[in-house]
């Protein structure tokens, strides 16, 4: 049964989460950071994750809009590589290496990797699964730069991926989405996987998973994981505060503030989880002049945005995307800070029209996004730029605004790769070129960054791409939101990496 205190905290989320978080002071305190220590064998972890019962998708190769469904996929099935201690970490594949010209990658299946029915994972299973994924409508997107016929069996326990152009990013390209099923699987997502947990039951988004004793990836403590779907973030917060679940995945800062007062709970902060940049259109319109974009970036008060829009659960960023990448140079190029005089000066030189008002489109798709837009607009006023925030429904936003408007907010959950962003949002062939930036320098640097056989030249290109973003890009990357999970204090070993790294909870457990 609930204690009174837990329950009262839970209610805050319904009654007045805003009020409570406003008087919470800066994050910090006894229960603020995740607890570490050994986990005992056994136990059932009840995980609450967000999703919509109307949008259930069990096939891990298809778009799974529900976090809950994706979590189940990541526990029961395995991709070739996953994010982890490094952006690309071994999972079903133990080792990989390219040919010297970077056109042929050889992947070795982990020793003793087997499906839940006991049969070993073979190269045929991997090839069949990758080709199936590539053949789906989203295949090109999920396996960028890879074609179906380029995926081949090498030996019974290894495959090769051959690409048309030199491609250093193949291990990244097969990360996360490349779930492997048994060859010829008729109902992917329902048949056996090779992951650390076996799916015992699935009922309208709720699932029970049991430990896979034969998993190749090391010791697993928990006996069971129960995934419970929550369609509402406040309901999920209430559930974890009231002890109805042990872990509320990705539940956000408001829940963290409430949990920080409860000694039975811990808050897990995962840095570089979400970028929420403001997008300025580069190709045409009011922000086409690089001096205007520079002025806007100088007018932003970043620490204030992090405090206001992210409730302090985040870090200041520097207009370069991919902050979690080991190759990120944002800390070396000089942190851009607020300089209103310089901003006004640049606007004057660029003859920027200060008499009119500029619409900033936003959505409430992710927590803090609307608040960030509102704060941004307020801050622009200090530089003499009138910005009017227009809030749109998600579907309307993607229909009318995204990739089209001169000024809007966006958000990205994969932040551990600089090249991910360059490929998807900055090259002239990118299908998500949000800032509509068409610059030959980006294209040639990108080709070098993925295709140059010399490691040092590739790294240099990655660094140059970031400097180009810093100087000329259309993103105002003012900060990075932490991913925030709330868990019972007895839970150990929760993932700390941002983005989809949060899905890999198989090594968690309960305190000894």
């Amino acid at each position, binding site marked *: *049964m*609930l*204690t*009174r205190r837990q*329950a*009262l905290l*839970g*209610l805050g989320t*319904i*009654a007045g989460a805003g009020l409570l978080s406003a008087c919470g002071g800066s994050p910090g305190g006894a229960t603020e950071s995740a607890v570490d220590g050994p986990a005992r064998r056994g136990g*059932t972890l*009840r995980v*609450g994750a967000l999703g*919509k*019962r*109307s*949008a*259930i*998708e069990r096939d891990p190769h*298809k*778009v799974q*809009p529900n976090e809950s469904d994706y979590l189940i996929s990541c526990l029961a099935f395995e991709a070739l590589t996953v994010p982890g201690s490094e952006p690309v970490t071994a999972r079903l594949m133990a080792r990989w290496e390219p040919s010297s010209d970077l056109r042929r990658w050889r992947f070795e299946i982990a020793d003793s990797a087997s499906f839940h029915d006991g049969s070993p994972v073979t190269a045929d299973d991997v090839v069949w699964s990758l080709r199936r994924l590539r053949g789906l*409508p*989203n295949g*090109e*997107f*999920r396996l960028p730069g890879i074609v179906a016929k380029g995926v081949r069996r090498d030996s019974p326990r290894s495959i090769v991926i051959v690409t048309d152009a030199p491609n250093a990013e193949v291990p990244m390209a097969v990360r996360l989405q490349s779930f492997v099923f048994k060859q010829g699987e008729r109902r992917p997502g329902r048949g056996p996987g090779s992951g650390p947990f076996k799916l015992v*039951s699935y*009922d*309208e*988004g*709720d699932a*029970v998973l049991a430990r896979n004793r034969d998993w190749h990836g090391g010791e697993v403590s928990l006996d*069971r994981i*129960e995934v*419970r*779907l*929550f*369609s*509402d973030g*406040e*309901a*999920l917060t*209430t*559930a974890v505060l*009231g002890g*109805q*679940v042990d872990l509320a995945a990705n539940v956000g800062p408001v829940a963290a503030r409430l949990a920080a007062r409860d000694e039975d709970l811990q808050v897990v902060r995962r840095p570089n989880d979400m970028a929420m940049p403001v997008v300025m259109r580069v190709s045409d319109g009011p922000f086409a002049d690089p001096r205007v974009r520079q002025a806007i970036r100088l007018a932003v008060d970043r620490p204030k945005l992090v405090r206001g829009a992210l409730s302090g659960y985040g870090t200041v960023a520097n207009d370069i995307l991919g902050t979690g990448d080991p190759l990120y140079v944002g800390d070396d190029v000089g942190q851009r800070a607020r300089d209103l005089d310089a901003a006004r000066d640049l606007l004057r030189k660029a003859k920027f029209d200060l008499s009119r008002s500029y619409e900033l489109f936003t959505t409430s798709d992710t927590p803090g996004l609307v608040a960030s837009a509102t704060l941004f607009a307020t801050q622009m006023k200090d530089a003499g730029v009138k910005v009017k925030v227009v809030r749109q*429904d*998600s*579907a*309307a936003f*993607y*229909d*009318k605004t*995204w*990739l089209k408007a001169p000024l809007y907010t966006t958000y990205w959950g994969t932040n551990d790769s600089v090249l991910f962003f360059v490929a*998807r949002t900055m090259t002239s062939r990118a*299908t*998500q070129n949000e800032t509509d930036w068409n610059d030959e320098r980006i294209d040639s640097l990108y080709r070098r960054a993925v295709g140059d056989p010399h490691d040092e030249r590739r790294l240099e290109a990655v660094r140059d791409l970031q400097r180009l973003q810093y100087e000329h890009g259309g993103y105002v990357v003012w900060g990075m939101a932490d991913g925030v999970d709330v868990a019972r204090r007895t839970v150990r070993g929760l993932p700390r990496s941002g983005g989809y790294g949060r899905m890999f909870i198989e090594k968690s457990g309960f305190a000894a």
Partner: protein
Amino acid sequence: MVSAASRIAVRTGLVAARTLLTIAVVATAVFLLTEALPGDATSGLVERGASPAAVASARAELGLEKSASARLWQRLEGLARGDLGRTAQGRPVSDVVARPLRRTLTLAGIALLAVIVVAVPMGAAMAWHGARASEKLLGAASVALISVPEFVVLTLLALLFTSALGLLPAVVVADSDGRIDVAALTLPALALALPAIAWTARLVRGAVADALELPHVEAARLDGLAPARILLRHALPPALPAIAASIAASCAALAGGSVVVETAVNYPGVGSLLTQGIQARDVALVSSVVVVMAAIVAFAFALADLVRDLRPRATWA
């Protein structure tokens, strides 16, 4: 006698026709409204910024390349055959809706039962005692309850039963066998029922108060019959059509309230399904849920109408 029977038959036929027409109009309106919203269901099937080819293939899968009028016709024709279509993710809507619908009917059924059991005696008592201070207080409380949205009622109830007393869970979490604890239904059922009780009790009071002024009821009063007997035997029958209509109206209110309450307590019913369907622009799902809910409400109103038509007029005419 013959004329009475045929009158009832004709009325029943008319009510059935009206109900069917209502459903058809609702289905069309929901289709057009969902259609008028910007964006479509493809966004749930492809990744942000997927290639035009992927978007086109998703649109084809959803049948969106057909004209709106063709899709509307297809939809109405399917509904007439009892085919609810498929969700954006390709699952049959009937599968997706079946269990949530049972859950919503359970939750709303509990609430409706509470409405009938509490509101009718309460309304009758308010009518009987008329000007007493306690009745005025009840009346004021009911006005307050009517004007407060369900989620506020829910929050206040949770403050009392979860925070202060620690008796009930604040949200619904199914156990590992997928079962839902009945105790978890208490808060949402109360949140749904209380405003409906307040509303219905006021209507019942009005209807019974009118009935109490009828000559034969006054006569019974003057004869010194017991209040319960007067209310049950003499005042309630003439008030019954109005009471039935107000209970039917409560069904509509409960259906609407469930959309808000289910989402807030994480109850997996059709109310929260509807919210999600609208966000995803899932036309088949949204129109199916609305049509099913509309059918239930229309059926309740039809029953209320039949109560009016079938009442034994002769006894007090």
